[in-house]
C-alpha cells in the first residue's frame, strides 16, 4: 500500500514538469540562438560600417568633385586638369592593388590576415574598377572618343609626378641620414664623421 502511494507521487511530479519542459526548453534555446545571431549580425554590420578604406583619402577625386560642382564653374582646362589628376591617382591605386594582390593572397592562405582584411582588399579592388569606369564616363562627357588620347597622358602624369616627388625628397632624406648616422655638420658646412678614423 505504502509503496503504491510513493510511486504515484513521483509520477505526479514528473507529469507536472512534462507540461512546461518542452516549452521552456525550446524557448530558452531559441532565444539564445536568436540573441546570438542578432549580435553576430550587428557586429558584422558595425564592422562593415567602421571599415576603413584601404587607401587614405583620395584628394584628387575630392578636388575634382569640388571644382566640377562649384558655382560658377571654373575654367574648362582647370577641370580637365583635375580630371587628369584624378585619373593618374586611379592608375596609381590600380597598380598598387595589383602589385600587392599576390602578397595579400599569400598572407591570407598562411592565416596571417583575417577574412576581414581579405574582403576589404577585394572591396577596394572593386571600388577602384568603379572609379575607372566613372573616370571614363567623365572623360566622354568632355568629348566623345577622347579616351585613347587621355589614357597615355594619365600614365605619364602618374610616373612623372612620382619621379619629381622622389627627387624633391632628396633633401629630407639627407637630413634623415645625417641624423641616423650621427654625422654632424660643422658651421662651415663640413661633415664630421663620428666613427671614421682620420
Amino acid at each position, binding site marked *: 500500500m505504502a509503496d503504491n502511494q510513493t510511486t504515484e507521487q513521483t509520477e505526479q511530479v514528473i507529469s507536472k514538469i512534462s507540461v512546461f519542459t518542452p516549452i521552456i526548453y525550446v524557448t530558452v534555446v531559441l532565444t539564445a540562438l536568436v540573441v546570438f545571431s542578432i549580435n553576430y549580425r550587428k557586429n558584422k554590420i558595425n564592422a562593415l560600417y567602421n571599415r576603413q578604406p584601404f587607401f587614405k583619402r583620395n584628394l*584628387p577625386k575630392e578636388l575634382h568633385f569640388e571644382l566640377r560642382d562649384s558655382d560658377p564653374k*571654373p*575654367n574648362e582646362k582647370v577641370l580637365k586638369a*583635375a580630371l*587628369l589628376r584624378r585619373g593618374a591617382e586611379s592608375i596609381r591605386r590600380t597598380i598598387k592593388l595589383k602589385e600587392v594582390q599576390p602578397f595579400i593572397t599569400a598572407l591570407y592562405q598562411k592565416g596571417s590576415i583575417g577574412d576581414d582584411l581579405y574582403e576589404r582588399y577585394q572591396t577596394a579592388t572593386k571600388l577602384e574598377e568603379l572609379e575607372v569606369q566613372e573616370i571614363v564616363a567623365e572623360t566622354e562627357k568632355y568629348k566623345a572618343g577622347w579616351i585613347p588620347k587621355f589614357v597615355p597622358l594619365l600614365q605619364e602624369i602618374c610616373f612623372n609626378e612620382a619621379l619629381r616627388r622622389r*627627387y624633391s625628397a632628396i633633401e629630407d632624406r639627407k637630413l634623415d641620414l645625417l641624423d641616423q*648616422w650621427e654625422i654632424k655638420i660643422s658651421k662651415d658646412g663640413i661633415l664630421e664623421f663620428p*666613427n671614421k678614423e682620420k
Partner: protein
Amino acid sequence: MNINNINIKNNNNNTTQSIMSLPITYDPITKIISINESAQNDQELKEEIDQLNRLSKDFINLNSEIPESPEPSKTLTPLIKKLVTSGIDAQKRGKHHDAIKQFSLAIDMASRRSRWEAFAIQLQELNLILMARCDSYIMTKNWIDAYNDADMLLGTQVNTPENFLRRATAASNMGRLTQAKYDLERGLCFVEDDERIKTQLGVVNRLIAVENGDL
C-alpha cells in the same frame, strides 16, 4: 570619410551643388586654386593643390584642347641641354662647384616640363644629370650629397656598376663600411669582372678588418 560626407550632405540639403567641401578657393581670373587659411597645415592637400595648379597651368598654356601626344617640349629641351653641356665643361676643367650649380639648374629646368611629357625621356634626362652631378659631388668630397644622388639612381633601378661604385664610394668615405661592401658585392653580381669594383671592394674589406681590430 564616406560617413562624414553623408552627414555633410544631410546638413546642407539646400546647397546641392557641393557634396564635399574642401577648404579651397578658386580664383577665376588667375585660374589658380588656393588653400584656405584654416587648412594651412594640411600638407597633403597643399601638395595635391600644387600638383593640380601645375597641371592646369600647363594645360592653359597649351594651344590645343588636349595634348596630342606625350612629346617632350621643344622649347625646354635645348635649354636643359645647354645647362648640362656647360656643367660638363666645368667638370672637365675641374671646376666642380660650378658644375654642380649648372647641373642643379638643369634639374630645376627639367622639372618645369609638363607632367604629361614622356616619362621615359624625363627619367633618362634626370638620371644623366644626376650621374654627372654625383661625380662632381664625389670630386668635392661632398659625400652625403653624392650618396643621395647615387641612392636615387639605384632607387630608379639604374643598376650600372658605376652607380654601385658611386654609392659605395660615398658610403665608405662616411664610415658606412658594411653598406659599401654590400653595394660593391651587388655590383659584382651584375658585372663579374669589373676591376674598379674589385679594387674598391678590397679597400673596403681592409677598412672593415681595421674597424674590427683584425688588422
